[in-house]
């Protein structure tokens, strides 16, 4: 059955090459439609595969220059293929209209050509079954996404983001490559190894390499610094795919490694758990303070990666210490949250993209009042916000519910020492949940509600229909995933894990209906539209509204240890001995902790060392011949010494 993946792969490649090679006017609509059909076929095929509980069937095996490339799919792959299918369908509907807003024809061909190849490379990473194939498609994915981030290469910010992104993906490739090499030397073949004992040091080292490689790509905290630069710099459909799908692909590989490659150790579980908690808490803290809408969404992807890592870490800890049922619950929660995060993060990025294109700015303090002007985009963003802050009937809630249930289950059953760990993780987990709610109240409230703060937001008009049908599709899928989640899990073979959300949402609807009927019939119906009450002065202007930094100032005060702010002020005086003050500026900004204390010093260090090494090349013939002379003398000494 899984041979059908091959035509889908060809369809993706076709839609990519169509737009890259043919230069006809508006060719990108044709390529988007082919990509849409490919996405639809892919999601249908993967749904079929998931339901029929297909075992790992090979769908293709080749030998590229004497290295084995095998593609196969099983249920876990099918779930993520469904995610790729839905996202590509939504993006294919969204992109043609979005590209109209871009300037430069060559750039439109380039973007609409590269997106299908980007999806194709991620699909191939999912299907790969030999380490070499995985490595090749992993690097292909990195390269294509680098090109896509680089589309608007005029601005300095985009080029800095693209370079930072490439440097980090190169380092991630180093670790993944080293892991693959170590696996090859352990097992002697390129096939995916199965159940390597976690105890012997070399296997543990290979796991560590692979884990760090994947952590860099999925934005785990110490390595996350490229993500908030790269995702906003890319055009919106691309950042939706990068945040939605690329992070899920990296996490899929994490699941694949832990499920099949190794028999994980308890210490590995604690490692993943530690990284998960750190990423979840710090991710949401930085998201809270972010003023750029798309960077805020990027940071919240980091936060969700943290939550998923907590789920995976719990699975490893529980299965290593012998509690299979809550371990399975944590794993199912993590996988479900990855898929639902992929969908609603794609929805949020697409709608944010329409907002940014309509209002021409990404800064939250310059937006406002868009819900009245862009009702559809605002409504869909609202649904995305409801699912990301895990409100019960929506899909975000299911993942967090399962993970929290596993945590409390762990609290009940495990040894006292472990209980302390569980308590610690519970409190961090719920702190992240609460801060996510606050972040998205700020994101939705200040962008969409109240008065527009600048003329850009004032003149924003609703984007064309295609640009909200795509996200609407994602919103529908997200709602269905949320409401029918216990039925879906039952279908997949994990019944009885969670309360029935369907009845809960039915009751919500019924009560809402009853309350509305009661109030409509008994209470008075007359309503009046007036000015907002403002202690009697004239109508409130947009300057009287709360801004982003004002909204988050109390939390910044509570967690001031984490938010190191720096105050920079400059004064100008009229007279030389500085007593008549003319004017001055003062600004508070958040110290970018990781960037300033870790990445920039490292880059400067490499730069200085490179400067020293390149001194070797400055100089005339004499200096070069002197090098030869010294080298020959050294060799002769080695000759003498090594006899």
């Amino acid at each position, binding site marked *: 059955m899984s041979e059908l993946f091959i035509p889908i792969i060809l369809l993706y490649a076709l839609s990519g090459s169509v737009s890259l090679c043919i230069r006809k006017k508006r060719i990108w609509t044709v390529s988007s439609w082919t990509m849409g059909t490919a996405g639809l076929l892919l999601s249908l095929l993967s749904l079929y595969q998931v339901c029929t509980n297909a075992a790992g069937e090979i769908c293709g095996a080749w030998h590229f220059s004497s290295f084995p490339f095998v593609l196969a799919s099983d249920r876990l792959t099918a779930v993520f293929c469904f995610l790729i299918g839905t996202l590509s369908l939504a993006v294919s509907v969204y992109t043609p209209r979005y590209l109209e807003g871009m300037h430069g024809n060559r750039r439109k061909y380039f973007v609409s050509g590269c997106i299908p190849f980007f999806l194709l490379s991620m699909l191939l990473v999912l299907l790969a079954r030999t380490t070499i194939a995985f490595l090749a498609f992993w690097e292909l994915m990195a390269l294509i996404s680098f090109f896509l981030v680089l589309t608007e290469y005029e601005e300095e910010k985009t080029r800095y983001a693209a370079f930072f992104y490439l440097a980090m993906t190169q380092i991630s490739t180093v670790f993944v490559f080293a892991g693959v090499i170590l696996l090859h030397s352990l097992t002697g073949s390129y096939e995916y190894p199965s159940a390597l004992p976690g105890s012997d040091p070399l296997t543990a080292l290979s796991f560590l390499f692979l884990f760090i490689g994947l952590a860099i790509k999925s934005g785990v905290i110490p390595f996350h610094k490229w993500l908030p630069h790269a995702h906003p710099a890319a055009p919106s459909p691309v950042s939706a795919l990068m945040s939605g799908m690329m992070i899920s692909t990296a996490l899929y590989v994490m699941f694949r490694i832990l499920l099949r490659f190794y028999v994980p150790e308890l210490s590995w579980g604690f490692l993943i758990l530690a990284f998960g908690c750190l990423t979840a808490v710090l991710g949401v803290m930085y998201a809270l303070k972010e003023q750029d809408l798309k960077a805020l969404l990027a940071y919240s992807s980091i936060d969700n990666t943290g939550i998923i890592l907590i789920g995976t870490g719990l699975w490893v800890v529980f299965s290593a210490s012998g509690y299979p049922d809550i371990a399975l619950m944590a794993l199912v929660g993590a996988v479900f949250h990855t898929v639902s995060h992929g969908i609603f993060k794609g929805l949020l990025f697409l709608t944010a993209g329409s907002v940014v294109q309509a209002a021409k700015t990404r800064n939250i303090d310059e937006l406002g009042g868009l819900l009245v002007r862009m009702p559809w985009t605002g409504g869909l963003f609202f649904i995305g916000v409801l699912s990301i802050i895990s409100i019960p009937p929506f899909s975000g809630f299911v993942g967090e519910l399962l993970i929290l249930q596993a945590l409390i289950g762990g609290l009940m059953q495990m040894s006292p020492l472990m209980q302390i760990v569980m308590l610690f993780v519970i409190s961090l987990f719920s702190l992240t949940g609460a801060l996510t709610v606050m972040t998205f109240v700020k994101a939705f409230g200040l962008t969409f509600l109240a008065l527009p703060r600048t003329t850009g937001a004032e003149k924003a008009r609703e984007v064309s229909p295609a640009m909200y049908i795509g996200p609407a599709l994602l919103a529908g899928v997200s709602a269905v995933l949320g409401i029918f989640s216990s039925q879906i899990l039952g279908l997949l073979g994990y019944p009885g894990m969670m309360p029935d959300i369907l009845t809960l949402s039915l009751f919500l609807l019924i009560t809402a209906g009853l309350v509305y009927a009661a109030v409509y019939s008994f209470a008075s119906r007359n309503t009046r539209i007036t000015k907002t009450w403002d202690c009697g002065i004239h109508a409130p202007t947009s300057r009287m509204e709360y801004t982003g930094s004002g909204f988050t100032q109390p939390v910044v005060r509570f967690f001031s240890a984490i938010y190191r702010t720096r105050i920079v002020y400059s004064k100008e005086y009229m007279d030389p001995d500085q007593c008549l003050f003319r004017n001055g500026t003062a600004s508070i900004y958040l110290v970018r902790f990781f960037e300033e204390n870790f990445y920039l010093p490292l880059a400067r260090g490499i730069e200085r060392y490179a400067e020293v090494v390149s001194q070797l090349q400055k100089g005339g*013939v*004499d200096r070069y*011949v*002197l090098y*030869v*002379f010294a080298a*020959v*003398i050294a060799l*002769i*000494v080695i*000759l*003498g*010494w090594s*006899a």
Partner: protein
Amino acid sequence: MMPDVVRICLVLVLVSSAFLLSSRSLSNLVKNYQYQSVLLVLIATGLAVIEDRPLLFLIAALTLASKVFGLPAFIRMIQERMRIQQDIRFSYLHPTGALMVSIGIILLVYVCFARILHTLYAHNSLFFLGSVIGVSMVLMGLLAVCTRKMAITKVIGYLSMENGVLLFGLFVTELPFIIEFVIMVDLIILVLLTTLLTVGIDSSIEEYKVRLQKFHLWTEEEGAQ
């Protein structure tokens, strides 16, 4: 008896390359090179007599023709055109320092080769002595190349390195004659090319064009720069 004559010549060759390192004026630099080539010819004939290999006579004649008369005459012609006599500019090592270093080199090579070729060293073979002196001559030539600023003096240093190789080649009994001959031709071409290029480097740019006209090698439009 004869071998110790050869040993004396070998030592004299080392002395000549030491002189090469330290001489200041260009003209006696070339004279030094000529003495060194003459010594080489003597060694070649000596060896030919001892080990009665007629081949070495031919090599000696060839060296006499090219290295004692041919190349020095060509270099002296280049020197007149450049009208630069004194090459006082040194980089890194002044002559006294260069001599110190060359003594160190000879000792180092001797010790290292003794440790490696302990069998040959044991019965004190001529080949071992030849290899030590050959390698150290090459190294001293290299030192000359890198301590002199003027390109023309670098060429002469290079020639003394080539002499070292030739010397070492003599000691190997049946090294085919063709190899020796072809090396000679190859090195002559090399030196011709480098001397032409050095003409460009040493003299200042303006003279460079005028001088090249004289050799009518490169007809120059102004557009090159």
